[in-house]
């Protein structure tokens, strides 16, 4: 175990080289509907219990199924109205369980990225072969069902191993949504020559945290989203920022919540002169082509670059970095 994951270098949020998004936009804005499957009676993982109560924990289970019967369709209506294409954080087994939802996403030209196979199968304790199997299953299953080559990853239920990000790079992923250290993309320090970046996702404006942890009211959530956006827009004049709204149909789509959410989405997408309303993959592609090298050079020039890769510090640093 390590005290510092060494997945990225410190990079002060001042005087960074300017990012200008396509069309001179200041904020790259994307929405990540989590389209997930939680199993009624999943196998146990010693590191995490899937459900709070003994199986079957019918209320939270069925509430998530409600998302797949009722909720996603409401999110789609709202996103259609606001002209937002989703970047889907996909429990890959949803391809099998609910092809009708996948079809609706494909019809809308939404992007898919992998969020594991089920959100009740955790990466903790996986061998390298098992973790590779999950990644290979994700790539193949999404390609077979939709023709898309997935380029992004959000570990299932945000469960990781020390090798997750190295494997993503090896399998030609472009971005990871697993890290929350910045409001801009940043190169990740992975093994090999491949380029992998961290894509700003969010816990703070993620409806799971809003409703599950902060216990905000729906109108307060809408207000939070708009203020979060206003600030990133202001800062985006200096250098381009990224705003993501991660959503879970089983939370945000309830009839007492979706209306205020729609108000916030209308507000944000009403600023199209300044906002690049896009997908995570398009942000990653643009960043890799235009700003990846610039970022690395700036980190180097500031003397912030440290040797080694994720969970693999350079020998001289490992003595103090290891625990």
């Amino acid at each position: 175990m390590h005290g510092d994951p060494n997945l990225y270098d410190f990079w002060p949020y001042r005087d960074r080289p300017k990012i200008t998004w396509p069309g001179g936009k200041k904020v790259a804005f994307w929405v990540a509907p989590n389209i997930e499957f939680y199993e009624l009676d999943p196998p146990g993982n010693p590191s995490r219990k899937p459900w709070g109560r003994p199986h079957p924990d019918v209320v939270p289970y069925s509430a998530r199924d409600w998302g797949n019967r009722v909720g996603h369709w409401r999110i789609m209506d709202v996103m259609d109205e606001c002209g937002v294409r989703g970047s889907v954080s996909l429990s890959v087994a949803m391809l099998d369980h609910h092809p009708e939802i996948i079809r609706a996403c494909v019809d809308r030209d939404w992007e898919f990225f992998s969020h594991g196979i089920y959100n009740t199968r955790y990466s903790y304790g996986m061998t390298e072969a098992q973790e590779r199997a999950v990644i290979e299953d994700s790539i193949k299953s999404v390609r077979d069902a939709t023709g898309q080559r997935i380029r992004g990853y959000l570990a299932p239920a945000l469960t990781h191993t020390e090798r997750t990000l190295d494997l993503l790079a090896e399998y030609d992923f472009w971005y990871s949504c697993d890290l929350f250290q910045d409001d801009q993309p940043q190169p990740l320090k992975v093994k090999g020559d491949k380029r992998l970046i961290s894509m700003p996702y969010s816990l703070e404006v993620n409806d799971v945290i809003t409703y599950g942890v902060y216990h905000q009211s729906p109108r307060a959530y809408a207000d939070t989203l708009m203020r979060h956006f206003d600030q990133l827009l202001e800062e985006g004049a200096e250098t381009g920022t990224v705003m993501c709204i991660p959503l879970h149909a089983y939370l945000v789509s309830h009839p007492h919540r979706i209306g205020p959410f729609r108000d916030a989405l209308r507000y944000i997408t009403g600023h199209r002169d300044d906002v690049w309303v896009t997908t995570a993959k398009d942000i990653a592609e643009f960043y890799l082509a235009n700003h990846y090298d610039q970022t690395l050079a700036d980190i180097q020039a500031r003397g912030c670059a440290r040797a080694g890769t994720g969970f693999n510090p350079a020998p001289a640093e490992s003595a103090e970095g290891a625990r």
Partner: protein
Amino acid sequence: MSILPDSYLTYPHRHAGPDHGHYPAAPLPGRPPIRLPGDLSLGLWVVVPLEFFPLNPSGQPFKAPGAMQTPYPDLRHYTTRDYGNRVGAYRLLKLFGKLGLKVTFAVQGAVAERYPALVRDVVADGHDICAHGWDTDSLHHSALTAEREQHYIQRTLEAVTAVTGQRPDGWISPARAEGFQTPARLAAAGIRWFADWAHDDLPTAFHTEAGDLTALPLSNELDDWQILIAHARPEQELVAQVSDAADWLLAEARAQSSPRLLTLTVRPYVCGLPYRVKALEDSLRGVLTRPGCGGVRPGDLTSG
């Protein structure tokens, strides 16, 4: 960290539809519309649990929401909950009378046995009764023997029937907790509808090996415990959230030519408090005064 067996990556239910046999996948849009009495666009179904919280709960297999918290004897929580059955419930009955709203009281067997007068007053006011298990410490879960669970069900139905003279055909489990066999055992006991699952906004057929039940929708989020206690929001937000829900559901009902249901659980020991009951009144009145909205009951939802 221990190593996971390779069986952790086998997925026996990875096929179309849910990972159980109770109902098939069915997206809400495009579902055949339900028909509500008086051709309502939005039906308001209010559920009021009448619960008994023993002073000495076992807490097995978990402590029900609202159960005792402090070391024995937790008179603070016992009497706070009992307040609901003595005072809060009557405050709610008065409010429903004022609004002309008929609701469903979910009655636990222990309440029927201990407070038959309350149950008779509910019936006399014209409200519906459904069974709500024996008490909040008699939870249904998979480790119960068949005999034990059947005993919970029968004892509850008999206690309620003894007071009302009518055997309940509807059921909500204490804490909405079930074992894998609970729905089949309810069906076998003659229950026709239940409202433990939160998988839909409309009634759905729910298959069990002992016959089909109707699963009535009952929001797990638009709920006085969830908003006022678990989320600790002020009362005005209950009013706002019910209002926003009504707006959304009415618009959806009209856009899709398919009536919708607004379901709301209110507890006598939560909404029946003096400082909260007006907020509940504002919430309900706000829904009921919208054109096309009115109260509905299980009988309106299970006939189709």
